[in-house]
C-alpha cells in the first residue's frame, strides 16, 4: 500500500490547511510524486472566528488528486481523468485526476475506511512510489489505524483562550500517551474482534466483559467496571473516552485503560485539574506515528505551558525560518 500521511487539527483554525499546503509545497518542490485528498470535504470557506476567507488548497500542475466530481466543473480542461470511483460502490462519483494547471480546488474524498483503502489500492498502482496526503479530521477514528495512515502532521492551536488552550493540551496529552506493553497487547488481541468496542480483562481466563456497543452508552460495561473496584483489571476501549466515562473511571487506581488510538481521547476536554485526578494507568493500543507538530500560536509564545511530548519535531510556520523546516 502506498505511504499515506494525514493532517489533523486540534481545533478549528488550528492551521491544518496551511500546514497541508506547506508540506505539500515542500514535497512538490522536492519533486516527490503526491496525490492529495481529504476525508469528507475540506474545511469551511470562511474563518469561524474572524470571518475572513480560509486558505484554499492549491493543487500544483502535474499533481494527482481525488475529489468528488461535483467540484470539478470550474476546472474543466485543467485536469486529466485517471480513474473514476463510481456509485453504487461509492456514495457519489469520486475522480482521481492529474492537474494540467495549478488548481484552487475543493477536495472531497472518502468518508469511510473501506472507501479510503480501496482508493489507496488503486492509487498505489498508478503511483507506486508516490505519497498520499490526506486532509484528515480528528473525528474520523479510522485514520489512526496502522493500515490506513503511516504518519501524521498535527496542527495545534495554542491560544490564550482557556478552552482552546485546554483542548490543545488534551490533544497533546493523547499524543504523549505510552504504547501498551507487549504482553497486555497480546491479552487484548486474544479476544479482540472487528466488532469489539470494549474489553474488560481480569485474572479469569476469559474477558470479564466484551462490549460491542459504543462504550460511553454501554451501561453493562459501566456496571462491570464498578464491580471490579479494587481489582487489577485492564479496560480496552475502542470508542471515545467521553467526559462521563472519564469521570467514572477516574477513581479506579487498580485499573489500566488501553485506548485503541489517540483520537479516542479527544472528547475528554477535561476541566482544569480533573485530568490529574485520573488514577488509572492509560495506554494506547496503536502508537501515534507523529511526523511533526505545527503550532499556530495566538499572541505570546505559550509553548512552555503546553505539554508537548518529547522527541517530536515542533514547528511554527509563522515564527521560524521556513527554509529550515524539513518534512
Amino acid at each position, binding site marked *: 500500500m502506498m505511504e499515506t500521511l494525514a493532517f489533523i487539527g486540534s481545533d478549528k483554525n488550528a492551521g491544518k490547511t496551511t500546514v497541508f499546503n506547506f508540506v505539500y509545497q515542500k514535497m512538490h518542490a522536492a519533486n516527490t510524486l503526491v496525490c492529495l485528498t481529504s476525508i469528507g470535504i475540506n474545511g469551511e470557506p470562511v474563518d469561524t472566528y474572524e470571518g475572513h476567507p480560509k486558505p484554499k488548497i492549491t493543487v500544483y500542475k502535474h499533481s494527482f488528486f481525488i475529489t468528488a466530481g461535483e467540484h470539478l466543473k*470550474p476546472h*474543466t480542461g485543467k485536469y486529466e*481523468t485517471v480513474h*473514476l470511483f463510481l456509485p453504487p460502490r461509492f456514495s457519489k*462519483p469520486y475522480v482521481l485526476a492529474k492537474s*494540467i*494547471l*495549478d488548481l484552487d480546488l475543493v477536495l472531497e474524498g472518502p468518508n469511510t475506511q473501506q472507501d479510503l483503502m480501496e482508493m489507496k489500492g488503486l492509487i498505489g498502482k498508478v503511483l507506486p512510489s508516490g505519497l498520499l496526503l490526506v486532509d484528515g479530521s480528528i473525528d474520523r477514528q479510522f485514520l489512526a489505524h496502522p493500515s490506513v495512515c503511516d504518519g501524521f502532521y498535527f496542527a495545534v492551536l495554542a491560544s490564550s483562550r482557556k478552552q482552546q488552550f485546554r483542548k490543545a493540551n488534551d490533544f497533546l496529552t493523547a499524543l504523549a500517551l505510552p504504547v501498551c506493553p507487549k504482553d497486555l497487547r497480546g491479552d487484548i488481541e486474544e479476544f479482540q474482534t472487528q466488532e469489539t468496542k470494549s474489553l474488560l480483562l481480569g485474572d479469569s481466563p476469559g474477558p470479564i466483559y466484551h462490549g460491542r456497543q459504543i462504550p460511553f452508552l454501554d451501561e453493562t460495561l459501566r456496571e462491570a467496571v464498578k464491580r471490579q473496584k479494587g481489582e487489577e483489571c485492564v479496560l480496552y476501549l475502542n470508542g471515545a473516552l467521553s467526559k462521563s466515562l472519564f469521570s467514572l473511571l477516574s477513581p479506579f487506581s487498580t485499573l489500566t485503560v488501553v485506548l485503541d488510538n489517540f483520537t479516542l481521547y479527544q472528547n475528554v476536554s477535561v476541566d482544569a485539574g480533573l485530568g490529574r485526578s485520573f488514577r488509572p494507568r492509560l495506554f494506547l493500543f496503536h502508537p501515534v506515528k507523529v511526523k511533526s507538530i505545527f503550532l499556530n500560536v495566538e*499572541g505570546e509564545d505559550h509553548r512552555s505551558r503546553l505539554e508537548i511530548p518529547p522527541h517530536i519535531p515542533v514547528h511554527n510556520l509563522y515564527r521560524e*525560518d521556513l527554509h529550515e523546516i524539513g518534512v
Partner: protein
Amino acid sequence: MKLEFEQNVVSEDLFHELDFSSYLSRFDLELPLLPSVVLHPLSRERGMAHFERLSRLEQKIDEGKLPLDELMAQSRKIPSPDYMLSYFESGALEQFQLLTLGQFVSRELALQELEKEYPVDEASRESLLSIESSLKTHTTKGFSRLKPDDGEEQLYKDWQVIEKELKTKLSQYEREIQEQTGLKMIYPYPKEILAPSSEVLFRIQKCRLVSAYETSGVFRVDYRLSEAIENLDREKNLLEEELEELVAQKLQRVNEELEPFFLPFRLQVKKRKHRTLDYALIWVKQQYGLCLPSFHGACHLSQAVLPVLHRQQREKYVPLDLELRRGANVLHGANMTGKTTVLKTLFFHLTTIRMGLPVPAASVSMTFPEQVEIHLKTAGSIRRNLSSFGDELHFFTKKMGENAYILVDELFQTTDPVSGAKLSSIFLEEFSQKSCFFFCTSHYPEVLDVPGIRLFRMADVAIQLETDHDITVAEWLEKMPFRIEPIDPSQIGEALQTEEKPLLIALHFPIPESIKLKIRERMINGRYPRKSGAGRSSEEHGKGNCRRNTEIH
C-alpha cells in the same frame, strides 16, 4: 454482481434454512455494469423465453462461436454509465464523465466484435461509432483529457510562461525582502515576530515590500506585492478565465454533438446489461456444473442437489431423482427417511428456476413453475389467530393456477388422525383431477387407496429387528438410502408395513427409561427381544454424526 430475490418470494425462514444466499453468492462476479440485480419471479412466457435464450447462448459458446472467457473478461471492464445518464440526456456531461462514456462505448464495440456470430443488436452500432468518433475528436489520452485546439494550446503556453515568470519574480521578491529586512520568508506565509529589536523593526517598517502591524503583542509581517507581480497575477487570471470560457464552449459543443445519440445509447446500455447477466449465468453454470432446465413434459429432476445439505454431507449426499405428473402426487413413508428433504429440494429448484437461475442438477425438464407454494409443518400463527390446522386450511384458500406447484409436508397431520386421514383423501381426490402439480408427504395409510394419484415412498432400511436391535440412530441414518421410488399398486400392502419403526426409533433416543420400558411392552407380540439395555442412544455414540437431523422431530 450481487444477486437478490425480490422480497417475500421465499419466506425468511426457508430462505435462511435452504441457504439461498450462499447459492446466490456463486453469482457474485466483478461486473461494474451490474453491481446488483434484484431477481423477480418470471411469468411462464418470460421464463421459458429466458431459459431458451440462455440455452441458445450456451450452444453458441459450445460451438466456439462465442468466446465466453474473453467475453467475461471484456464485460468486467465495462463501466456503469448509470450515474451519468441524466447528464447525457440533458446535454450537461462533465469532462470526467466523458471518460465513462468513452470507455463504455469503446469496450462495448470491442465486445460486439467478439459477438459477431451472435450480436446483441446491430442497430445501435452506428450510434456508438458516432459517439466514439465525436469523443475521439474532442478528447485525448483515452478520453481522459479534452483535446485543446490551437487557440487553447496557445493559452496553455502563455499561462505557463506567465507562471514561470511569476515564480521568478516571487523568488526575487523573497530575496529582496531578506536583503532589506533580514527576514527569510516564503510567499504566501506571513511572518510573526515576538518583541523585535528596534533595528529589525526599523528595517521592516522602512521596507516597501512588506507591511507590518502589531497584534496581541506580536508583530505580523505581511506581503505587499509589487505592481509587476500583481499585474502578472492578474494576467494569469485573465488567461485562466479565457481558457475556462473556451473550454466551456467546447464542452457544450461536445454535448450538442452527443445528444442525438442518447436514446440509442441508453437502449444499448439496457441490452448490454441483459446480455452481461446472461453471460454471467452461463459462466457460473459452467463453473459449478449447474444445469439449465428445459420445459416440456411434466416434471422430471435428475440428480438434483440441495446445496446446503450437500455441503454438510459431502460425498455421502444422495441427489434426488424425481418424476411428478400433473394432479396429485403423494410421498408416503416412515419417519426419518428424508421425505421433507425431498420437498425442500424440489422447492429450492422450483424457486431457483422461477427466478431465472440455473440449478444444481444433472437435468431438469418441467412445466415452468410460474407459481410455487409450499406448506411446511407450523405451530400456527398467533398474529393471524390461526392454529396449525387453521394455518394449513388457510394455505388451501390461495388461488392455485393450472401450472402451479403445490408442496405440502405431512398433509393434515395438524388435526386428529381420523379427520386428518379423511381430509387428506378428500383433498387428494380433488387435486388428482386438477392440472397443477400437487405433491405432499403423508403417513396416513388411507391415502394409498385414493384413486388417480401417483404414489411414491422413500426407500427404507431393511432392519432385521432380531439382529439390528443394537443399532444407533446415527448408524441407522448411515444405512438410509434416501432414495425416492414409485409405489407399484401391487406393493401397497408392503408400503404399509412400517414394522413399528417409529417405536423402534423412539427407543434410540435418550428418553426416560420408564417410557422406553412401556414402548417395548407394547411393541406387537413383544417382538422386540431385549427387555433392557436395548437401543443405544445416539448420545451414547457421540454427537454430530446424525445425517438428516432436520428430519428428527
